Structure formats: structure tokens, C-alpha cells
């Protein structure tokens, strides 16, 4: 079953590899993955859609939370969250269907980002199922090319972010000595 995981991670080299490594070492296939900086430039927000067996979902989240670079990993699969994806579609249309294509685009609230004699480039956002429909409709007008962004999601609940405070003692010698 597809699982949506939202992660807040340190923007450091290797962070992405650690997270995807956890999934690939268990043989899970990633459906989509998006990463971008947050308001705090040292942190990134990542949204991963991945096919994970339902019984192992909690284990995957726990393993992600163990990673040093991961500040928070939450499962948004069944919790209230807004999921959105963007698609760019290039559709080749004949002269006589141009108006119809524009009408359909309007129904899906898609924007025209380029227009030429050969057709249009359209931009649409929505939940992934809506985009599937949009793509199906556009395909009926002619040859199309698409690029999807992958899902981005935001939780509608406030998840308390627990961060570790700095450790002031440096050096094993200063830690409690094992008996």
C-alpha cells in the first residue's frame, strides 16, 4: 500500500542517501520523492510516497526517526493532510481542437504556460488522482508529454517537534564511567 511520509531533515550531504537507503535496503520502491528547503535554510522538507507493507509502516517511520539527520519523520497516510502534485503537460493539437483543449484545461483549473502552432504546454496542480484524470483527458486530444513533480504534502495537525538540546560535555572522559 502506498504510504506518504513527510520528513524534516538537516540539509546535509548524505541525508537523502540515508533515507532512500533505508527504503531500498528493504526492497521498497519509491513512487515519488520531493525535497526542498524550508523557511530555515539548514533544513529541508521531504515528502516520500513509497510502497510499504502496512504491517511494516511503523517500523519504517521508527527507523527514519533514528537517523541523525532526520529531525522528524511522520506518516501522513491516514492522518489529515493536504496532498498536492503538479504536472506539466505538452499536448499537440490540431487547429480544430484547440478551443476544446483550452475548455478542458479550464475545467481542471490548468494554466497555459506556452502556446504554439503545434499545441500547448499546460500546468495543473491537484491531488494525484485528479492529475491522472487530467492526463487521461488530454491524451484523448493527441500526443502528449508529461512531467509530474511528485506529491508534496502538509499535515493539518500540528506535530510537536522534539529536538535534542546541545550536549555541553565533550569527550568520553567526561561521561559517566562504566562500572
Amino acid at each position, binding site marked *: 500500500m502506498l504510504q506518504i511520509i513527510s520528513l524534516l531533515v538537516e540539509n546535509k550531504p548524505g541525508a537523502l542517501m540515508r533515507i532512500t537507503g533505508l527504503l531500498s535496503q528493504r526492497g521498497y520502491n519509491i513512487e515519488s520523492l520531493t525535497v526542498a528547503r524550508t523557511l530555515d535554510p539548514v533544513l529541508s522538507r521531504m515528502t516520500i510516497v513509497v510502497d510499504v507493507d502496512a504491517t511494516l509502516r511503523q517500523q519504517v517511520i521508527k527507523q527514519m526517526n533514528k537517523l541523525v539527520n*532526520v529531525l522528524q519523520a511522520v506518516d501522513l497516510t491516514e492522518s489529515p493532510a493536504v496532498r498536492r502534485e503538479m504536472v506539466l503537460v505538452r499536448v499537440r493539437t490540431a487547429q480544430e481542437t484547440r478551443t476544446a483543449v483550452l475548455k478542458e484545461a479550464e475545467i481542471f483549473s490548468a494554466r497555459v504556460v506556452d502556446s504554439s502552432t503545434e499545441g500547448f504546454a499546460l500546468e495543473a496542480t491537484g491531488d494525484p488522482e485528479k492529475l491522472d484524470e487530467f492526463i487521461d483527458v488530454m491524451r484523448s486530444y493527441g500526443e502528449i508529454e508529461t512531467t509530474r513533480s511528485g506529491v508534496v504534502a502538509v499535515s493539518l495537525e500540528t506535530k510537536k517537534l522534539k529536538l535534542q538540546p546541545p550536549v555541553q560535555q565533550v569527550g568520553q572522559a567526561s561521561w559517566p564511567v562504566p562500572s
Partner: protein
Amino acid sequence: MSTLTNGAKMLLECLAREGVDCFFGYPGGVTLPLYDAIYDHHIRHVLVRHEENACFAAEGYARATGKVGVCCATSGPGATNLVTGLVDAMMDSIPIVAITGQVTSKLIGSDAFQEADTFGITRSCTKHNYMVKKLEDLPQVVHEAFYIAASGRPGPVLVDIPKDVFQAQGHYTPVTSIHLPGYKVFTEGHTGQIRRAAQLMWEAERPFIYAGGGIIAANASGELRELAELLDAPVVTTLMGLGGLPSNHPNFVSMPGMHGSYAANMGMTHCDVLIALGVRFDDRVTGRLAAFAPHAKVVHVDIDPAEIGKNRAADVPIVGDVKRVLGRMNQILTEFSASPVPAGRATARQAWWSQIRSWKDEHPLAPVTSDSEIKPQHLMMEIDRLSAGEAIVCSDVGQHQMWAAQLIRFNGPRLWINSGGLGAMGFGLPSAIGAQFARPDKLVFALVGDGGFQMSIPELSTIASHGLPIKIVIMNNGYLGMVRQWQELFYNNRLSSVELDCFPDAEKLAAAYGFKGRTIDKPWELASALEEAVREPGPYLLNVKVSPYENVYPMVPAGGAINEMVLAPPQPVAVPK
């Protein structure tokens, strides 16, 4: 305070600050600046003969002391040779910091000489890893590495350092704090849960303590003992937990699992409250999970939240440091013990103990001896006699490891050192080197099979070079015994590539390295030969030829339930699909 220095010296400065007194390694092209700095530094560098053994030696050091073990290798082949040791440390939660050299920054990614993607390769074999790009990051990274390795659930951390960072000149400013906002360490345990667990344990009629490597890692053997006595519950310690409760403690049952004792496995199966402390319900312990401890409510204490419910759902999960959790639990149990135990429960507890005792008596882990040949169990009993629960025994992997775990007693933690989770052959001898450096006062046995020994022969040279008084005891049955056992039992005795012929003459081999060695094969020679080995002030190589076809019992066939043990050889065994 700030002084001009280079990266290599800065690294050693940080190691010194971490209290490192010795580390194990093998130099190479890109670590030349580091080895130049080591030349006149007070930290001792131990030159091993293979990088894998540097990592195993660091593990031996860490396992014997609880301190972080350190190993070092050059780029490329040096770093890739560390991988087995890193995975081993990961599986057994052993704190290790591995330093690897990397090719000069500008050359990274160009297929330079001795270049390997160490950072990428070791991602999944470490708790965390680093590549240091700038000299100014180096001290921070090194201290973070030690902190991560030793805190929470311990594990290996690797720091990859390009040659130019070792060489770069800069001012060293001591690090004063570590900030890892995403690194979550759970130590305290939930108060309400601890109380619930204590209540459940107190009211249990058939309580059973299942203690693992977490007890050793947390230095919680004192707390475990107190708990066992407060509850008067039987205790099993896993392969990783041996010594967590002294073997001569009246509550100690033995080791559970695939080659665990009858009493241990029956106890697990029939208990009503299973108290799992610092364990991960490994498949070698649980057997078929669906049939594991079917009547038990489970209290599971572990510092790693991902272990809770991973294999077996816990009725009372407690995430925390087992030492602290048990400390508080024992306080609560002490309060409880002020009031009298209801008569019904006291009777049930008595019945439980007499049941455990009769299981023990029915099928004890009895030593097998013979007049004509040395039985492997006989060898273990003799080592046990000489050790008297006090020696450090560094075991390799295989049949001898299981017999040793069954029959050698350990009066305290950090005496039994073995590769548990990974089962890495070739671990015994190099880990004994680390253990002997860490504990020069201790009698250290490297107890190895003839297979694992031949994987680590190069380290005889390290032992000789430092005159380490390690007693290398080879349980030589001429086979890869554990594989042979499985081929005999499950593959119609078609012995395929398991015979180890052409074993070298031990006396000559040891003599070639300049120390004493001997081969024995008569049971009456055993005691005196071992005594001679122990009396010898230097290293000693004792090759003990044991009966070749002895199998380890009890045995739970793979996929079986742990109460369905095969107790002795003649019993037929089903061939697994």
C-alpha cells in the same frame, strides 16, 4: 586557546581528549600525514596485519571495557576491508569509531588510485558516518562521532578524511558542545509504564527474565541481579548477554534459543510474564515467532524505539536506558515487597521454580567426555575450570562458540566476547588482541575453530610482535563444524566443501612466530596442556584435536518452535522445505 597545527595532529588531539589510549590500524598512501603525526604522539597505535582485524580488535577493546574502540584504515581497499567489522559492530551495538583516509578532495570522484566511495559504502554499515570536507569541521565531527557511537544504542561511526584535510594547516580550537538536534536519545523511560510493568511482574505467577546484550552495553548487570532477586524470577541471558548475571547465581538458568538449554526454552514457552531487557527477539532466540512465549504478557525495555514491537508486540513497552529503568523498577518492587505476597501467588511461584528445576534436571547441559578422544564439550569444561568464571573468552563463530556459550561460566559482564548478530568468522583472534590491550591484567583466551583460526592467522604476527599473552585454543575438528552439522542433519550428510584438511602443524606454526605451540588429541593430555598454556608468560597456541563428528545439542531446527528442541543425536529431524 588556539594553536596552529595540521589536520592529522588535530585528529590525534581530539582522540586524546576522548580518552583514547590505543587504536588499531593499518597505514596507507592517504593516511601518511596521520601516521607521521602518530610517530611521536603518546597515543599508542597497534599495527595489525589486515584492516578487518583492526576493526575486530577495536571491537574487542570496546566489548571488554565499554569504551569506544578506535580503528583506522587508508582509502580504497583499507576502507572496504573494514566493512565486515563495521557491520559486526552494528549488529551487536558495539561503540566503534573508524577513521578512514580518503583521496585528496580534488580527486574525489575521478577514480583516483585507491579511491572508493567509503561514505556511500558504509552508509548502511554504520550508525552514522561523516566525510570531512574542511579542516575547521574536523574537531566537531570527531567529537560528534564519539558521542553518537557511545550514546543511546551504541554502534559504529565512520569518519572519512581526505588527505588534504589531514595536511591542511589551521588553528585548533577545542570543541565545547555538541548539537545534534535530530539525534534522539531516550534514557529515562516512562514513569507510568515502569510502574505498570512492575505491577505486572510482581503479580506474575510464572515470571521469566530474558536479558540480552543491552544489559552489558548499559552496564546494568547490578540492576539485573537486584531485579532477579527482588522478583525471585529465573533469568536467561542471550548469547550477547552472557555474564550479565553471574553464571553461578541461583536464578541463572542458561542461554535460550537455537542451541539454548531445555530449561531456558521451556521456561520461555511456559512463562506468563516475559521480562525482556535489552533484547531484540532475534530469530536465533525466538525460533518460530508465532509459537514463541505464547502465554506470556511481554514487558520490553529497550533504548531503541525501533526494537519495540519489531518482532514481538510488547504489552508494556518501555523505551529507555535499561540501567535507569531497572533502577526505578527495583525501587518500586522494593516498595511492593514490603507487603506480603498473597498465598496463592507464592504457591504458584514455588511450583514454577520446581518446574524450572525439573526441566534443568531432565535435560541438563551435561559435559560429554570420552576415554579415547577429546570431546569438544570436555574442552569447554576444562577452559571453564581454569577460568573459574573470571577469564575473558573471545570466541570465533561456529560450533565451539555454542559449546562455549553453553558450558563456560562468566561471573561478570564483558568477559564473553563474540560475534553474535553477524556471526563473522575470523572474529575471535583479533578481538582477543583488542581485549588483551584493554585488559592487560586479564587472562584472555582466543577460543577459535580451525576454520575461523585460518581466517586470522596473519594476526599471530601482531600477537608475537607485542608479546600478548593470549592463549589461543583451537577446537580443531577438521571441519567447518556447524555447516557440517547442518549438512548432516538437513542435507542427507552430503558433506560439501566443509572438510579442512592440511591444517598446519601448530607447534611449528607458533615456533615460526617465535612462541610456543602444541597439538594434543588425547583426553588425558587436555588438562595439563591447558594448564601449561596458561602458565606460559607469553602467547600460546594450543591445537586441540577433538572428535570430528560431534554435533551441538539441544538444537531447534530452523523455523521450529523453541520448545521443539532436538535434544540428542539419534532423534530424526525433519528436512526443512
